[in-house]
């Protein structure tokens, strides 16, 4: 590994400017959520920053008694798990298909990625109409169907990235040693992809957990979490909702950060010394 192998000399003005813009971008992305988190620790009814010594979990304690919040959370977790259980294997299968394809590869990829770009409200509306015509009553199942469409492109991408780290020669070697294609896949490819499959599952779960536009059209009687929160946010936000927003932020950031650093660690272990670019 050559640290800072690329541009190192020359004018510092450009580097400084670019680094400043990078930091500015990160501030825009992180500062508001961080501020909300700190403000949610205020003991007062009115949300604002307080000295760390006065930090309190009062509004977080109130969360425990919020029944409607609890049932929205239950619904979202159910939908998220169901979505992830479906998206992970289907995504893996699509990634394997992409690798095996000799023709129509770019079209296949375009189909997969294009699903990301249809506005959520339009996807949700179309799906809700079709499901209603099919006499399928809106429930957590219909939300899951919508969320499968939303998360699958990401599950495919994560599996593709994971698959690119598995050399085809490893699979071929197992085949040469007499393993059937299924056996070689289960014994060689699958263990090497464990990390990406976990990432795929967690990302699908989180994307589903936070999805709002499609769920708006697909829910039954029970709200999902983002829909409940959206309602609460627009009707005079209470400290509880800030606390809950804070909790969501902490949990989802922690989950994704963990996945990323786990992946990096694994990558370093498997590809020590070689720059994979």
């Amino acid at each position, binding site marked *: *590994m050559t640290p800072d192998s690329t541009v190192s000399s020359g004018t510092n003005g*450009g580097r400084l400017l670019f680094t400043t813009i990078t930091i500015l971008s990160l501030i825009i992305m992180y500062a508001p959520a961080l501020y909300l988190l700190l403000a949610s620790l205020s003991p007062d009814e009115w949300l604002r920053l307080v000295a760390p010594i006065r930090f309190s979990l009062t509004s977080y304690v109130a969360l425990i008694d919020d029944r409607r919040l609890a049932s929205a959370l239950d619904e979202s977790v159910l939908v998220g798990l169901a979505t992830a259980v479906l998206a992970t*294997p289907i995504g893996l299968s699509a990634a394997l298909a992409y690798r095996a394809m000799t023709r129509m590869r770019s079209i296949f990829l375009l189909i997969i990625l294009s699903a990301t770009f249809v506005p959520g409200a339009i996807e949700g509306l*179309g799906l809700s109409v079709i499901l209603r015509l099919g006499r399928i009553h809106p429930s957590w199942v219909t939300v899951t169907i919508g969320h499968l469409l939303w998360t699958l492109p990401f599950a495919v*991408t994560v599996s593709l990235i994971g698959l690119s780290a598995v050399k085809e020669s490893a699979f071929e070697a197992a085949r040469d040693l007499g393993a059937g294609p299924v056996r070689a896949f289960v014994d060689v490819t699958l263990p090497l992809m464990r990390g990406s499959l976990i990432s795929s599952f967690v990302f699908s779960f989180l994307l589903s957990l936070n999805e709002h*536009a499609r769920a708006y059209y697909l829910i039954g009687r029970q709200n999902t979490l983002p829909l409940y929160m959206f309602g609460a946010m627009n009707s005079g936000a209470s400290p509880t909702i800030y606390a809950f927003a804070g909790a969501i932020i902490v949990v989802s950031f922690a989950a994704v950060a963990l996945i990323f650093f786990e992946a990096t660690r694994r990558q370093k272990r498997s590809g020590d010394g070689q720059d994979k*670019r």
Partner: protein
Amino acid sequence: MRLDEVARRRQRTAFLLALPSLVVFVGIGFIPLVLMATWSLWTFDADTYWVKPIWSLASYAALLEGGRATVFLRTAGLAAATATISTLLAAPAATVVGLLSGPRRATLLVALFTIPFFTSGLVRAFAWRLVLGREGIINGALTGLGLVRTPVEWLLFSDFAVVLGMVAADIPFAIVPIVLAFARIEPSVIRASQDLGAGFWMTFSSIVLPLITPGIVAGFLFVFVVAVGTSMEIQLLGGAGASSISVMINDVMRVVNFPLAFAIATVVVVFLIALVIVADRTLKLSRLFEHLGT
């Protein structure tokens, strides 16, 4: 002969593996869009609150009424502003990742730029209210420093807030394609440029910029397309009566005017698909993703 057989079996395996995802994308993604496009040309039936198969362009004519055309243009305008600002931030940031960082810092930065995407967009949009509001941190600082006498009102519930919220949410879509474009640059090209004595700006403008341009265009396009579809920032941060295409669809559906909602959806989807296809044809954007999984 034998080679032929192997190739055919490989194709069949590939097809079988692709099948589940195709069922999802075509069955629950594509078919509803096609049906909506068809039904948008039917007539609203007030008895059943559904459409009846009498062909009509009435819904498309209604697109131009009641200020709906303005909503289309405003949505496109806000999305274009968001895409422009996001790209202006993302190109330098991706350069820091792809050119100015060692592998460790590059990985860390990519992680930092992508992590928020997987967290609650709703909460992140909502958080801007605390920052930009009358009692928010920015107004607090401005009045505290004596720069303004009364809180600045246009920070929140304005187009400014909407674009800021969307930029913060959509930067990952701009950065990822540019980082992918960097991954395709041969390091020797940059080293050669330096060996010949080119400084940072010279290397950036004459070597790097032309090579990452497809990534920059793809990034702009991704953000634009995503921003056209969002409603969250408009609803949480926009001013009174602020609308967007998605909000308009929700409103139209509140009075269950199916054909009109379908017409809006169709126009938007056709526009977005055309945009992506044209850009892909002219710039070969799908090449950016080609090395994935191989």
